[in-house]
């Protein structure tokens, strides 16, 4: 798209701003107990303000209300959408984007504001316009435009009960999404596998068997960790190992709050632990709150299976 083409395209899409997608349309069903109860049942909602008329009669409202999050539900088109929707300003806008290569679609934000609580017997009408279209943006998904619809919901008294702003990105996809299949199973992420090289594979192999070993110089018996080929004291490259009892104390600790890493627990506590044998060890502290930790605290380690693929020593307060 050269500059002129882009200008022509933008003139075309910006002409949609202010266009009505749905003129004021009453909901096919008045707000009713049956749909509220079904919605609540499925979503696990137990709020008596929606569900318990006896409770609600004695509440400050004096009656039940419709769940605010159902505001958009009442006016939804029915099952016929499975056979396609009647064209409107939004579908025409979307087609205009598609025709120019902006075939990607991503709902990015939805905001509902509620001005008035609705109750059983009310009828909600929805009116939707294309409220704004952004300038051309470069996003992680690709180049595109955000458009936002504004829906206004009114009841039978013409009171505005709420509004919804829905923002959608239409973009040129960097690659066309391939169709997925049943074999694209959802793999639960596991921790990053330990790097096992010539000098440390033996240590991790022992860990897989539930043991934490500490390397020992054969010549001067100095212990060392993490594993490495040469003794720092006497430069001997001969070594064997002892098994740690995993008794230790906390020397230092921190909590890794950001970013969240897939496969890892949220807010993991990472500590430097001084083992009873004398070497230092970095591991996760579990079974305690960050606020309760202190330096010098006694801890005991256990080698545990932390996910489907990983054995790892973790430490607990004694």
């Amino acid at each position, binding site marked *: 798209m050269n500059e002129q083409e882009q200008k022509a395209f933008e003139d075309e899409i910006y002409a949609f701003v202010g266009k009505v997608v749905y003129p004021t349309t009453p909901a096919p069903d008045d707000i009713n107990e049956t749909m509220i109860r*079904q919605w609540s049942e499925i*979503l696990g909602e137990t709020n008596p303000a929606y569900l318990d008329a006896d*409770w609600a009669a004695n*509440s400050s409202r004096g009656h039940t209300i419709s769940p*605010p*999050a159902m505001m958009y539900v009442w006016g939804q088109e029915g099952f016929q959408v499975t056979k396609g929707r009647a064209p409107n300003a939004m579908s025409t806008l979307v087609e205009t984007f598609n025709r120019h290569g902006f075939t990607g679609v991503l709902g990015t934000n939805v*905001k*509902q504001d509620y001005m008035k609580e609705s109750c059983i017997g009310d009828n909600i009408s929805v009116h939707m316009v294309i409220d704004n279209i952004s300038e051309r943006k470069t996003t992680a998904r690709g180049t595109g435009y955000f458009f936002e619809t504004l829906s206004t919901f009114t009841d039978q008294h013409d009171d505005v009960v709420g509004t919804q702003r829905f923002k959608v990105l239409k973009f040129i996809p960097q690659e066309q999404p391939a169709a997925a299949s049943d074999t694209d*199973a959802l793999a639960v992420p596991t921790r990053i596998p330990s790097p096992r090289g010539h000098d440390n594979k033996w240590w991790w192999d022992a860990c897989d068997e539930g043991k934490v070993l500490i390397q020992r110089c054969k010549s001067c018996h100095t212990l060392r960790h993490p594993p490495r080929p040469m003794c720092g004291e006497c430069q001997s490259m001969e070594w064997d190992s002892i098994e740690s009892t995993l008794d230790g104390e906390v020397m230092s600790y921190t909590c890794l709050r950001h970013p969240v890493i897939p496969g890892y627990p949220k807010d993991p506590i990472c500590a430097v632990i001084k083992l009873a044998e004398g070497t230092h060890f970095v591991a996760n502290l579990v079974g305690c709150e960050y606020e309760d930790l202190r330096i010098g605290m006694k801890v005991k380690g256990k080698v545990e299976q932390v996910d489907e693929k990983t054995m790892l020593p973790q430490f607990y307060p004694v």
Partner: protein
Amino acid sequence: MSEYKTLTAADVSVGDKLQSTDIDISTGLVVCGALATRDFEPVHHSKAEAQAVGLPDVFMNILTSQGLMTRFATDWSGPEATVNSIDLKLGAPNIPGMVMAMTGEVTAVNGDTVDINILGENNIWGMHMQGTVQLTLPKEL
């Protein structure tokens, strides 16, 4: 008045954490949630249609996510709270087999009005939704 307690502004401080909860994303929740919100877009009930757009299975519709988010807020506040707004940013899809962990924290208290930042994060793709629910809590009696 009842066994349901509702928090008042005096009970709440910025930084208060909501009781976290895990939601199992089952096919039932996705499909029935779409039905309960009258969202009959095929991608929410037909696996074949979802796969045609590149996802391995049916995925949760926005109205179900909104419902789960407001439920999480009012489960914490109690039933006398009024929901003023829900402002949410959409992330990765929720697909059957995932578990979505919901966490929340009070980020503002202005008079009787509280803002709660809520995160719904699934165990496979991460952030599904993140946003703010604003509630007005009842006046103290």
